[in-house]
């Protein structure tokens, strides 16, 4: 085995049973606003994964030298520096998407997943496990983002990644795009439905 049991848990747990968005309910803030189309959702997922993974590694390396009373500020500064790097890279290479994401790239700083993972995992574990945990949580977050964006773009605009998917013949028969899917409230309802389906299959996660 390449990975020990604990590392595998750190990497794969967040994809379903311990998903940051639908189970821990973290990081909703910036998650939903970018899901009207697949492309920005995809870029957002990659950015968050990169920031969580590297912030986890840095904090994990520093964990024994950070005084406890100022750790929140230290974490914020590390995260903010990483987010600035991501922001500049996006502006340089995918300017259009960076424009679409607008303020939400900056808002990765206050994404609760970051603070949650830094506090709960990186402060207590070594750099390699922290890296895997960061990647796992980033992917778990990205997975939900992409599922939401898939449904919203497919039903709302009839496209995927900007390519027309629903054939013209269907429109000729009277099919219409559901404009409501593009609007912000539908993102919340789609998340509600994902939680519904997920918990219907995982009975132990249901709340009383």
């Amino acid at each position: 085995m390449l990975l020990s049991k604990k590392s595998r848990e750190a990497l794969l747990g967040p994809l379903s049973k311990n998903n940051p968005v639908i189970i821990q309910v973290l990081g909703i803030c910036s998650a939903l606003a970018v899901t009207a189309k697949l492309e920005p959702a995809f870029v957002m997922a990659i950015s968050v994964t990169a920031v969580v993974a590297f912030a986890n590694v840095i904090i994990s390396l520093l964990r024994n030298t950070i005084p406890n009373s100022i750790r929140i500020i230290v974490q914020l500064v590390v995260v903010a520096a990483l987010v600035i790097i991501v922001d500049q890279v996006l502006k340089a290479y995918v300017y259009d998407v960076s424009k679409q994401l607008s303020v939400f790239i900056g808002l990765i700083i206050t994404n609760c997943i970051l603070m949650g993972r830094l506090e709960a995992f990186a402060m207590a574990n070594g750099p390699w496990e922290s890296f895997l945990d960061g990647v796992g949580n980033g992917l778990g977050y990205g997975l939900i983002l992409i599922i939401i964006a898939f449904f919203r773009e497919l039903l709302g605009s009839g496209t995927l990644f900007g390519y027309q998917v629903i054939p013209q013949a269907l429109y000729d028969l009277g099919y219409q795009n559901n404009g409501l899917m593009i609007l912000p409230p539908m993102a919340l309802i789609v998340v509600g439905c994902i939680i519904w389906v997920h918990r219907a299959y995982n009975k132990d996660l249901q709340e009383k």
Partner: protein
Amino acid sequence: METLNLFIKSIFIDNMIFAYFLGMCSYLAVSKNVKTAMGLGIAVTFVLTITLPVNYLLENYILKSGALQWLGTEFAGIDLSFLSLILFIAVIASIVQLLEMVIEKYSPSLYNQLGIFLPLIAVNCAILGGALFMQQREFASVGQATVYGVGSGIGWWLAIVGIAAIREKLAYSNVPKPLRGIGITFIVTGLMGIAFMSFLGIKL
């Protein structure tokens, strides 16, 4: 008139929760009863009202390209806008800390009401989001930025008190098992968002 328009717009149409999903984490976590929701809502409004004008001044006199001109003409070409994220979050964190100390000294009763929520606000997306939207929309004056801060704070407060009241009632209803708790809260928030969309297009 324009200012009043901005105020109404930031409460109802550009609502932090329903239009931009900002501050969702604390919105979902602290909306189990109306009383605590009220406290958090007031705290957020308070912090937004104070941090937005400060960040506005920072943006316009230090960060924007050419903003350093008041130091002398040789500084006119400097563009520090890439530093805005880190400075905004630093300002927010320190103002929250400062506020906490001031409130503790002068109004212990308010301090007790806000309790743990005050320090948590530093990492509330709504505050940083407000600052970033302020930067993006390029308001004309400090006054407008402040009005925007108050308005979006009140909008956030309305949303959290509304959902808390609904969740209190929801506790007695027969919700399908997998939807209980967080699932139904999402769906109700979505429905509230649709209701708030009816304000779209209001102009004074």
